[in-house]
């Protein structure tokens, strides 16, 4: 599309000034003990080809005899939002969970193929899944703040239970994370209240704050808004847009309009296979595969 004239039309990936006066950039972290077996990635560079957050090669995942993912190859760009869409049972949640090794919690899970996370082998020998999950955070469909912990304790639980003791550091991290989750102003005067005393939308943002308190490099979101009303959904989507500058976000959603609104790239899956993957604009305006066309236009099934 030609750029024309005296007025500079906004680019498609224009990032607005943050609505939240946040300490947006992650501050340097004292390393958590024990030091990650998988060393942290280099900071994002603005020049050069886009960094690859996940390099998935020929991945297949089996639960016992059932094959949930069939030979999927996919490269997820860093510092962007990638949406995974598809009908129920297509394997999108399984694919998401394989990115932080949560699918291993299901008995009988095994995989073939490889996933590299920022250059490191995710399933290499000696890689501790617990450590991996500190680099890759996850937000679930139903918000799940811990009921016996206060709001502040909820946000910091990942740090505290991993041995971080420095109170000054923790307090700063608490405020930063709540600001980044656009929750600080709403809760700053009652941080001592139980995590479950918040509304549904606030609880989900609390879970996001809890996840980013760990300063992971990547955030996985499994249908984060499906239990929320439109306004809460809008707030979470704005948050995703904000966070995508500093984090890589992969979001599974069955709401196609949401995928269209928030993501830069979209992957369409069906029956365990990756049918099409590309720029969101292209997937929704001019899909290459007829199955994709059928699905996004609502003619599927």
């Amino acid at each position, binding site marked *: 599309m030609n750029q024309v004239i005296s007025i500079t039309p906004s680019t498609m990936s224009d990032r607005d000034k943050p609505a939240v006066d946040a300490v947006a950039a992650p501050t340097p972290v004292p390393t958590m003990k024990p030091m990650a077996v998988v060393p942290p990635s280099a900071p994002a560079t603005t020049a050069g080809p886009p960094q690859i957050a996940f390099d998935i090669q020929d991945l297949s995942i089996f639960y016992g005899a059932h094959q949930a993912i069939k030979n999927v190859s996919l490269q997820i760009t860093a510092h962007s939002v990638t949406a995974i869409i598809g009908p129920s049972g297509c394997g999108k949640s399984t694919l998401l969970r394989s990115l932080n090794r*949560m699918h291993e919690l299901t008995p009988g899970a095994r995989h073939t193929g490889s996933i590299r996370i920022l250059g490191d082998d995710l399933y290499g020998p000696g890689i501790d899944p*617990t*450590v991996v999950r500190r680099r890759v*955070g996850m937000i*679930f469909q139903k918000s799940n703040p811990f009921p016996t912990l206060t709001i502040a304790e909820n946000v910091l639980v*990942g740090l505290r*239970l991993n041995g971080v003791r420095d109170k000054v550091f923790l307090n700063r991290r608490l405020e930063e994370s709540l600001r980044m989750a656009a929750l600080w102003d709403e809760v700053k005067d009652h941080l001592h209240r139980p995590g*479950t005393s918040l509304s549904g939308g606030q609880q989900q943002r609390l*879970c996001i704050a809890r996840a980013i308190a760990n300063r992971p490099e990547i955030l996985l979101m499994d249908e984060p808004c499906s239990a929320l009303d439109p306004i809460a959904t809008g707030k979470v989507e704005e948050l995703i847009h904000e966070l995508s500058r500093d984090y890589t976000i992969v979001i599974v959603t069955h709401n196609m309009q949401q995928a269209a609104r928030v993501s830069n790239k979209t992957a369409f899956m069906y029956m365990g296979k990756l049918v099409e993957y590309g720029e969101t604009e292209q997937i929704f305006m001019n899909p290459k595969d007829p199955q994709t066309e059928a699905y996004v236009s609502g003619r599927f099934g």
Partner: protein
Amino acid sequence: MSATYDQYRKAKSHCMSGLAVFCAVMVVMPLVLVLFYLLKMGFSSLNWAFFTQLPNADPEGSGGGMANAIVGTLELMVIALVLGVPVGLLGGIFLSEYGGEKTNGFVRFAADVLNGVPSIVWGMVGYTLVVVPMHGYSAFAGGVALAFIMIPLVLRTTEEVLVLVPGAYREAGLALGIPRWKITVHIVLRTAFKGLVTGVLLALGRIAGETAPILFTALGNPNWNNSLKEPIAALPIQIYYYAISPFPDQNRQAWAGALVLIGIVFLLSASVRIIAGRRKKA
């Protein structure tokens, strides 16, 4: 509908309601009667002396109390708690958090069987395992026997309560990169805490009144118990001896003892109710 059918319907309804009320009364009546009788027989003997004095050495005489038996019961409960609760708790944690299907089935079956073992058998176990090697009856032996009763109880209630903790919390903890055992201790156990305490209190209430297992392990003691290796007095034992004694004063004291024992069990049940009833601020 004719008027007579209407009347018939109403009469039938009243009949059924009446029957239901009658059944409820029949169930509650024995309980009320027992409590009432106990109160009648034992209340007058409840005095300061009863709670503070040792049994009268002279069986024919009056006076004296069951102070050592009351304390002894409490002491045995504590020993049983210390010995039995950790085992039951860890077993319950294993079943809920770490076990596999086959192992769990086996462990649960064993626990259910053990729950049904007559308490006197536990007494025999305590006798064989502790009294004989130690060459003597002791508080410790009594505690052991009671602990054996507590273990399968606590195990089952722990498992039930932990299983009720939603898996979503475990998942959230795992997704934060928290090690499994820390999730179990800091999140799962913490969330289930009230239920766990309830389970322990219920088990304590169960063993408070157990007589057979402590008869030939703790034995009973006319005096204060000074060490775990010595025999110890307990309410059930004392009640037993006094109730069958030919001396009226001791009979009277037996009633009082029974009332106190019921009182302890009642307190435990009431605290379970209070703890379970307190809802978290939502």
